[in-house]
């Protein structure tokens, strides 16, 4: 393997030789390599966030016909760095009566949980933290720690607004885990493994073309898990001021901010790994560095789409949000599992044309039926609400009688 084709394996081999040459035992060499890899994979995303925040604010401005940040540096690229310097020197204000442990633990959990996901994501066929055989379950488990951070922030702040935000987080984040896990069952079924590298490697055809129903459910649930518009109920500024993070200041608030922006990118990364084929692409097997580029291109496309959703849709009401989850996404995910399981077993294996077409047609059919059912449901509700019937009669004002003054003048 040359350096250009696969730099990571090349560097690992080189480091192993160098460290082995120093007379370290193989266990210690392994430990040092693990620690180096872990530091790279945690510090990297943290630094990436600096760029992400600028991209998101700038693109958000464009989506909403604004300019976005444009003062600090060309196109405002140094805006985030200026914000960072400011937030680093801001005072921490801990409210009276706050539960110190929960209050301080919450922002750490929020960021750590998002970073933890990066340990199992294959950035390329050879570049990944680790390929554990329960990667999908690991992602869900670590994601749940992030939800715990939000809930603890609401509980520990000794503030009613924060507590309301925490309640909403319980209702929303926890509920949307159900369709998310159900949707994740489908790619696991098709690839026969829970390891993310195996799932990415099994996609000769991206799963979004095989099982669009599960991909759609996962995408919507991922937006909701992010806790941003249109699902930003737990920090709805117009209703509960800032929700769970109202009492945070300085870098403790900054950590929630980082977690929010990084979570969006991480969701896009997970989506493109599981449903868009991850690092797969022409020549990705021979040149793992190409796989990394393919994955990033896919992720950025999904990410921009996510931003488009965020900056254009209005917020759901809480009853609508719960109804979308329990009455639409959960049954749809279950139906997607059933349809995929039966159709896939009846068609021959591999990536033959028959199997692809059968899966695609059955999934699109499922989505069309769902669309029709939702339409019928909405129409039934609208019909019940309508009370006044018949076209409104237009009352024409009678012509004004000619006033006396005018008569006199005439």
């Amino acid at each position, binding site marked *: 393997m040359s350096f250009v084709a696969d730099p990571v394996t090349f560097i690992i081999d080189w480091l192993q030789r160098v460290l082995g040459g120093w007379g370290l035992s193989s266990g210690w060499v392994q430990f040092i390599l693990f620690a180096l890899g872990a530091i790279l994979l945690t510090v990297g995303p943290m630094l990436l966030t600096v760029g992400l925040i600028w991209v998101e604010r700038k693109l958000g401005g464009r989506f909403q016909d604004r300019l976005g940040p444009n003062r600090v540096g060309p196109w405002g690229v140094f805006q985030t760095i200026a914000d960072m310097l400011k937030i*680093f020197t801001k005072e921490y204000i801990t409210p009276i009566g706050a539960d110190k442990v929960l209050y301080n633990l919450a922002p750490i959990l929020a960021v750590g949980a998002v970073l*933890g996901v990066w340990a199992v994501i294959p950035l390329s066929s050879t570049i990944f933290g680790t390929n554990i055989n329960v990667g999908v379950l690991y992602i869900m488990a670590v994601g749940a720690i992030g939800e715990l951070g939000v809930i603890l922030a609401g509980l520990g702040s000794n*503030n009613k607004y924060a507590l309301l935000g925490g309640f909403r987080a319980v209702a929303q984040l926890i509920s949307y885990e159900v369709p998310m896990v159900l949707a994740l*069952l489908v790619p696991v079924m098709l690839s026969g493994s829970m390891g993310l590298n195996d799932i990415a490697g099994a996609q000769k055809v991206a799963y979004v073309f095989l099982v669009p129903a599960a991909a759609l459910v996962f995408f919507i649930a991922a937006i909701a898990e992010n806790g941003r518009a249109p699902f930003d109920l737990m920090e709805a500024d117009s209703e509960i001021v800032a929700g769970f993070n109202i*009492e945070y200041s300085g*870098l403790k608030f900054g950590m929630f901010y980082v977690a929010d922006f990084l979570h969006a990118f991480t969701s896009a990364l997970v989506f493109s790994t599981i449903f868009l084929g991850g690092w797969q692409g022409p020549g990705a097997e021979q040149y793992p560095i190409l796989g990394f580029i393919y994955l990033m291109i896919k992720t950025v496309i999904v990410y921009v789409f996510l931003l488009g959703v965020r900056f254009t849709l209005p917020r759901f009401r809480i*009853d609508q949000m719960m109804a979308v989850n*329990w009455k639409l996404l*959960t049954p749809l995910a279950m139906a997607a599992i059933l349809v995929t399981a039966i159709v896939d077993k009846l068609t021959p294996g591999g990536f033959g044309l028959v199997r692809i077409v059968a899966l695609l047609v059955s999934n699109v059919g499922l989505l069309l039926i769902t669309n029709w059912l939702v339409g019928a449901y909405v129409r039934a509700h609208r019909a019940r609400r309508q009370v006044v019937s018949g076209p409104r009669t237009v009352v024409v004002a009678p012509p004004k009688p000619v006033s006396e003054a005018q008569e006199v003048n005439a």
Partner: protein
Amino acid sequence: MLHEWFYLVIFLSIAFLLPAAAILIAGLLSPRKTGKIKTSTYECGIETVGSSKIQFKAQYYLFGLIFLIFDVETVLLFPFAVAYQKILLFGVIEAVLFVLILAAGLAYAWRKGALDWH
């Protein structure tokens, strides 16, 4: 196998230490001037009445309960999903029955009105 989990232990400890260290460093850099009014609970300028540990809607609890049941039952489906490529149609039908029982539970909760937000 084991060293993969060892890697996760190292990774997660660094992932949680990193934000903790950043918060600690920022705490050393930032000024410290507390006051009674400054640290009072923020409620848009209005003085707080009573404790902040208020009663909450029972609905939140209800949804938590439904979530618990569904999440556990979903996790039970993962072994089936991993073995799916190897099992025969008979096994698939069994899994279909399991999902249908799950769906029946959802339909029951729906019919009882547990999924409506009041």
